[in-house]
């Protein structure tokens, strides 16, 4: 049993992109000798794909339509889905929402949230922050909160105070502030999604998601989690990051450095982490 579970964890590490070249080659050789195990791996990959697809409106529809085969419903819903999908791709890339980003991080990253935050003093005058910086911080803190919450870390409640105070400085931001303030360490996923959606919408979704991605990337880099950077959202995040930095004329060299580091086949975690922290500091100030 323990060998089987060890194999399961190796396959899971392969799917998550956590195996080095040697361990990966070893696993592929083992798989080659056992077609049954290849099928297990295929099943696991297919399940992950189906589950992630059901989180995306485009694919939810695709799966259920295929099952039901109701052509009239298909035609009507296709129009809605295409419109929704296009809108979401342009304005609301859900895979870059703070909650979605937190869900991709390993639970072990929760331990580094508060210890290594780029903004150690989470107090002070929020009114003085430029709106873009405020949005970047909100996105980043939402990731911290979601990660701590999903890891059942009691530190989650401590993030709520500064986050809601940041939202209180946004004109007409009371609804988002109240939704965030109501979150505690027992918040449900639905409450979290609702509050995060309101908060991101209030401060500026694009910038908030840049902050969310940067914070996710910072935590992933601290865990040397290369899987995070292989996700489909990475390219979109880097493009948006580059655009936001360009508009503000802040952090452009760090963006270019980060892109070059991520393009490099060898992961240099320390410089990657430094570039990300620089960007969080510069764009969040």
């Amino acid at each position: 049993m323990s060998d089987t579970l060890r194999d399961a964890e190796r396959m899971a590490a392969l799917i998550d992109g956590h195996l080095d070249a040697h361990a990966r080659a070893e696993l592929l050789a083992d798989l080659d000798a056992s077609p049954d195990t290849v099928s297990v791996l295929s099943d696991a990959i297919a399940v992950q794909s189906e589950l992630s697809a059901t989180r995306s409106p485009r694919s939810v529809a695709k799966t259920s339509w295929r099952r039901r085969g109701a052509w009239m419903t298909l035609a009507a819903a296709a129009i809605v889905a295409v419109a929704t999908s296009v809108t979401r791709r342009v304005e609301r890339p859900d895979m870059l929402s703070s909650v979605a980003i937190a869900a991709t991080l390993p639970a072990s990253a929760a331990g580094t949230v508060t210890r290594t935050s780029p903004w150690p003093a989470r107090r002070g005058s929020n009114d003085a922050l430029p709106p873009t910086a405020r949005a970047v911080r909100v996105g980043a803190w939402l990731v911290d909160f979601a990660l701590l919450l999903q890891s059942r870390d009691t530190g989650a409640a401590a993030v709520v105070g500064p986050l809601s105070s940041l939202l209180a400085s946004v004109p007409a931001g009371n609804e988002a502030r109240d939704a965030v303030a109501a979150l505690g360490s027992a918040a449900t996923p639905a409450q979290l999604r609702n509050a995060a959606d309101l908060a991101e919408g209030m401060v500026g979704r694009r910038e908030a998601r840049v902050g969310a991605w940067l914070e996710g990337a910072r935590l992933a880099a601290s865990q040397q989690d290369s899987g995070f950077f292989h996700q489909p959202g990475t390219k979109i995040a880097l493009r948006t990051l580059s655009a936001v930095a360009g508009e503000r004329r802040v952090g452009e060299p760090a963006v270019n450095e980060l892109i070059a580091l991520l393009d490099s086949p060898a992961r240099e975690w320390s410089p990657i982490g430094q570039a990300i922290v620089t960007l969080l500091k510069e764009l969040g100030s």
Partner: protein
Amino acid sequence: MLDKTSLESVFLDNLGLIDRVAACLARRHGLSGDDASDFSSWIKLKLVEDGYAIFRSFRGESSIGTYLTVVIAMLARDFRAQRWGRWRPSAAARRHGPVAIRLETLVYRHGYRVDQAGEVLRTAGETTLSDRELGKLLAALPVRAPLRPVEVGPDPLGQVESMASADGILVSEDIEHERRHAEQTLVAALGDLSLEDRLIVRMRFWDGLGVADIARGLRIDQKPLYRRLERLLGTLRQRLLAAGVDRDRIASLLTEGE
């Protein structure tokens, strides 16, 4: 090491994921209704067995969600073997999707006629295909015999039609022989590929995974993978043609479809 309460808490935290993974795997393995419910309960029993041994063995080398997904996929294989012996959905059925898997299971595993299977599938909302369309789908799958006796219920055996004549579908022994020859040639051709190429081809054509899923699962770039698969397909087609396998058979073995 985590104590039992902490392990239980990890189990409870992941209960939603466990249910979703079990439901996906049930569909993938052609389980529905009571079988799918039994499978889900059995999975949970296995996960809590021996003081949460599965959770205790987790070393954090992957995310817990992915680990549980792989473990449940392994358990699904055991469940299927326990219930049905070595019977499993054919590669062709997997390539054709969940309806084909269910149809194959109902006909070849449980001994239903095509019209009976069609009624079951349509009643459960799993398909809107007619019996004729299901018959065509079944014809694209290899003919199989159940490994264990099939429960036929109170109906006398004489009333159960032969599966081979179901809904007017005839699959001759010659065709089956030709199919086996083609599959054996394909297996031999695979032996000449690199380890990773072989794995990719198996996942694509045996297990019916999409290119994007293979790329994600094996952590390889998706764009070059399309060209790579095209090249591999070319190589395999050449080998099959050289061995006298006809083009229709090659197409049915190496059909790409998401």
